[in-house]
């Protein structure tokens, strides 16, 4: 018994050694992907952020693809992103916004200043949506297909070069 036990540490170490050795040889992939890609979007119902624009309601969004954009008026990359969202809207792509930890006045001023590409904006004061869909920060954009599934995740601001690909992804999501 004792004879066998003294080899346990060496055996455990050999296992550890094999594991990290394999980890070292493996090509590194460091991008963080939402585990929810391909899965159904959790049911979102958020109050309206600004007057005159609806909030997010799961019932109203059923049956057609759209872009879900997580943003905030206090987020600087969101400022750079705003004109691209306006372009997407002009191309007929519905953009649904979720404003994170924000106030109505601030969002209204943000839209007036940087452009408004949103067909609806919900207010998420406690970052619940971010937690629910595995978003890692603002801004972040998801393509949701007609079946309500998350088809694509775009981390960071939407640049001019991304617009066509995102529009195509939404059109392909019917």
């Amino acid at each position, binding site marked *: 018994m004792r004879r066998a036990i*003294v080899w346990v540490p060496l055996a455990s170490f050999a296992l550890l050694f094999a*594991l990290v050795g394999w980890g070292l040889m493996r090509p*590194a992939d460091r991008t963080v992907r939402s585990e929810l890609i391909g899965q159904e979007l959790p049911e979102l119902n958020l109050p309206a952020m600004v007057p005159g624009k609806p909030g997010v309601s799961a019932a109203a969004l059923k049956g057609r693809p759209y872009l879900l954009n997580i943003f905030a008026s*206090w987020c600087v990359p969101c400022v750079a992103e705003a004109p691209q969202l306006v372009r997407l809207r002009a191309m007929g792509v519905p953009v649904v916004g979720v404003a994170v930890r924000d106030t109505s006045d601030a969002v209204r*001023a943000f839209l007036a200043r940087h452009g408004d590409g949103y067909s609806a904006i919900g207010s998420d004061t406690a970052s619940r949506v971010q937690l629910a869909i595995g978003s890692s920060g603002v801004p972040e954009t998801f393509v949701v297909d007609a079946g309500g599934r998350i088809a694509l995740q775009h981390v960071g601001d939407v640049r001019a070069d991304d617009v066509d690909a995102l529009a195509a992804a939404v059109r392909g999501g019917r």
Partner: protein
Amino acid sequence: MIAEFGLAALWLAAALAALQLAAAAIGLDRARADVAAAVRPVAAAQGLLAVLAMLALMAVFANSDMTVRLVVENSHSAKPMLYKLAGAWGNHEGSMLLWVAFLGAGGAAVALLERRLDERSLTATLGAQAAIALGFYAFLLFASNPFARVWPAPADGLGLNPILQDPGLAFHPPTLYAGYVGLSVAFSFAVGALVTGRVDPAFARAMRPWVLGAWVLLTLGITAGSYWAYYELGWGGWWFWDPVENASLMPWLAATALLHSVSVLAARDGLRAWTVMLAVVAFSMSMVGTFLVRSGILTSVHAFAVDPRRGAFILALLGLYVGGALALFAARAGSVRGGATFDPVSREAGLVANNLLLSVILGVVLIGTLYPLVAAGFGVQLSVGPPFFNRAAGPVALVLVVLTAIGPLVRWRRDDAGAVGGRLGAPVAAASLSAAGLFAFNGFGVAPLLFLSLSLAAGLVVASVLPLWGRRLRRTPLNLWGMAVAHLGVAVALAGMASDAAFTRETLVAAAPGIPARVGPFVVTLDGVIPRIGENWSAVEARLSVARGDSEWVLRPQQRYFSDPPTTTSESAILTRPDGQLYAVVGRPDGQGRWQLRLWWKPFVTFIWAGGTLIALGGALSLVGRLRGGRARRRFDAAATA
């Protein structure tokens, strides 16, 4: 010229390490005392040369010698002198050189100072130390030469990561490294004892000061690192369960277990094989930690520039040393006799339980740290965070806290369970009082685990000083004082952690000047934002008026922009009061005169680091006590044989 001198010193040190290993092997194998006699002086010379190489690198950094590649890549002539010097170890090559300098110095210290161990075991120990050093010299010379030149020399350097431009960097890594390397001495002692087969109380008494010293440094390093991350990263957290933090925690856990088991071996001649095993594990964990940081196989905020070839090199060293030591252990453990036995109710039994619980926590941390790698093997990408570690390690740690309270009140060899229960009256009363007080103020508002933590902390405060009760304090041995202070530190740190988790208040506002925001008992008003210029940065600085009752303060958090390399950092502003800290971070402007402002009120959070410091102080007191005790014992022996 200085760079070449450093490189030459490094080569010479490597040659001496080879000589030291060969002399030790021949001395032991052929029983040649004359050859073995060379080991001590060679070890001392090797340590001296390794330290000289490190000093040469620091000189090169101090002079901003832009013909040295490492300086170009990690320094800039406009940097303040402190960060030029600290820049010498704020990168891969330099930190490895610091590591071998400590390794060499550790071996030299053993060679010059160790008088308790028998000559054969000492020779084996220094041989093992030389073997470790040799591998790391090879790593430096063949894969990470810190003194490499660059031609043609650029006009100036690329600068140091601004997060690292902080007094914390000047002290945090060297302290931790000294701790890791102190554990290498314990490792060498264990290997030496396995080679000569002498695992006895004399061996334990000889090894104990080294373990204590390493443990004190590790404790200080981890405490300082935690505070550094807390104020520098601007996230308001003090521990993130990041792989690199875990890499420093795992050797500490093993060293803590070793510290306690070595006491059993020294006092009662028990736990022989286990103690040797722990000494091997403790240093192995520091090597695993080094490997995890350097190889980049786990994603971490601490990651160094990643180079898989270097990772493979360290992995090979890891396999050689740890695998070799464990194989030696397996082959020789049979020859280590069982040692003395003890009663289920005794100090020894308590220390065994302490060791088991620490091992469980170590296992949890190790598994949690490596699990993402295992999961990657099955094609799943995930990260393991605080929810796992807190839930898996938290309850075990609380059981350990209970044991910390009970253990010192139990006698060696055999005790009566009823009598031990009687001694626990006061701590139990303190814990109950604290629980009742918490309930009266907060009802069920505090999570159960935190509620329990706060109550247990109160109990441990009383229990930790009980061993001093009724003694004449001036005649109490220092190591007893050390134990009481260290255990008190555990209670204080636990109280701080639980209080931070239970009572922290957070506010995130887009602040317009003049509009007050509330966080906890404070009212915070943004007075305005002004530009500031520093030695190598520019910043926007918010002026915050803070009021609580009639008292008022001003806080000035900054957003700093560094130009070499271009980076932004948040410099938090912290208001420290006796009952906690107000932590303020200023973020980005929204373009309409408002600023993102993040405020935390953290009651008694300072207890965490005060506790850590007390733990280290306790260790230091014990160390002094043991060293004095050892000298007195030798004088007594000398007088008896004279």
